[in-house]
């Protein structure tokens, strides 16, 4: 009886294909990851139970730092340029065309209007960080955030402004109030406060309301 002889197979597997897959995935993840937008200062945002997602496009972010400094960031490049041009003419900041060109690389603004010229001429590293004075929003007489937002409203003209407020938990209410005042003056009546999401107490009324209603 001739038993069929099993051919001895090699136990080594060709790894080339697997290697290809691994590196393909790796490059995909690296390229698909969006880098964090630049931040003027580090802020520790407070948390809330709100689970509303922030609309990711065309953000206008007002940041309040720990020490009450106010920063303003525009995501849309073209509109940012228009806003700075508008401020330039309204307050005669005398920015040269080459200085206006530098607006393209600066996303976050945190200087008084009069210091805009030197701000745009400073190096990239100096355009963010703790050393910046912030946009003056301290009192009603010199609330320059109001002027910034007035230009913003003028440039956006009717289209919705995705206004976000990002504040450090330790910032004083007075600064927050001045920022709200600047919003109100420009008829920006709706805005989002960015918060960290936290769990909801099951005994609370909101939890009961949410669970009684079927999810839409």
């Amino acid at each position, binding site marked *: 009886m001739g038993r069929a002889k099993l051919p001895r197979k090699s136990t080594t597997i060709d790894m080339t294909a697997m290697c290809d897959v*691994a590196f393909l995935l790796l490059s995909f993840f690296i390229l698909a990851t969006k880098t964090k937008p630049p931040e003027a200062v580090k802020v520790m945002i407070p948390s809330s139970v709100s689970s509303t997602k922030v609309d990711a496009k065309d953000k206008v972010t007002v940041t309040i730092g720990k020490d009450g400094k106010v920063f303003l960031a525009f995501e849309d490049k073209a509109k940012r340029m228009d806003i700075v041009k508008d401020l330039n003419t309204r307050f005669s900041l005398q920015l040269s065309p080459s200085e206006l060109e530098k607006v393209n690389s600066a996303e976050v603004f945190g200087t008084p209007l009069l210091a805009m010229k030197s701000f745009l001429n400073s190096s990239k590293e100096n355009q963010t960080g703790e050393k910046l004075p912030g946009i003056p929003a301290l009192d009603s007489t010199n609330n320059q955030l109001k002027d910034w937002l007035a230009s913003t409203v003028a440039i956006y003209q009717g289209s919705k402004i995705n206004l976000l407020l990002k504040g*450090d*938990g330790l*910032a004083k209410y007075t600064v927050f109030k001045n920022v709200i005042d600047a919003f109100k003056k420009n008829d920006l009546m709706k805005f*989002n406060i960015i918060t960290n999401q936290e769990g909801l107490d099951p005994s*609370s009324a*909101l939890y009961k309301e949410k669970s009684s209603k079927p999810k839409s």
Partner: protein
Amino acid sequence: MAEMDTSSGGGHKKGPGVKKAKKMSTRVDLTPMVDLGFLLITFFVFTTTMSEQTAMVLYLPKDTDKPEEQNKAKESGALTLLLARDRTVYYYEGILATDGSNFKSGSFQGIRQIILDKKASTNPQDLVIVIKPGEEATFKDVVDVLDEMTINVIKRYALVDIAEPEVMLIKATEGAGGAPAATPTTK
């Protein structure tokens, strides 16, 4: 695949004078490279935090000087929360008594119970909570109180500037070194 056939002529005898050149395999073991690839993938996947931001929406009322456009709050349904420094909360129901007898103090832990008690004892249509952050209150305090409104499903609340008599009362209470005598213990 990326391997070359090196076995051909392996056992073939050459002539006596011909030295047999040792044939090196061109095949590379790719296992460590795969390991490295997947290690990097896991590293990137784990270090990347999903940066989906959540936010609370706040609608501001329009400032108006005309009395007929201003919202009226019934005295019986009003609860005023005053935010002072170090996360202390002072509160009173209705209108502040001139002698400050209904002025009480609490903390952020007790605030939910105060709101819930008020909510249970008043007509839902009359209920309005007035939030008055003081000079010393922080942004976090304000967000936390607004959050309490959401948690307890309070439909009507307002963010109002603090008034002078209230500041005086807070100062007096803090100066006395603690809560006024009328304070109920809140948990």
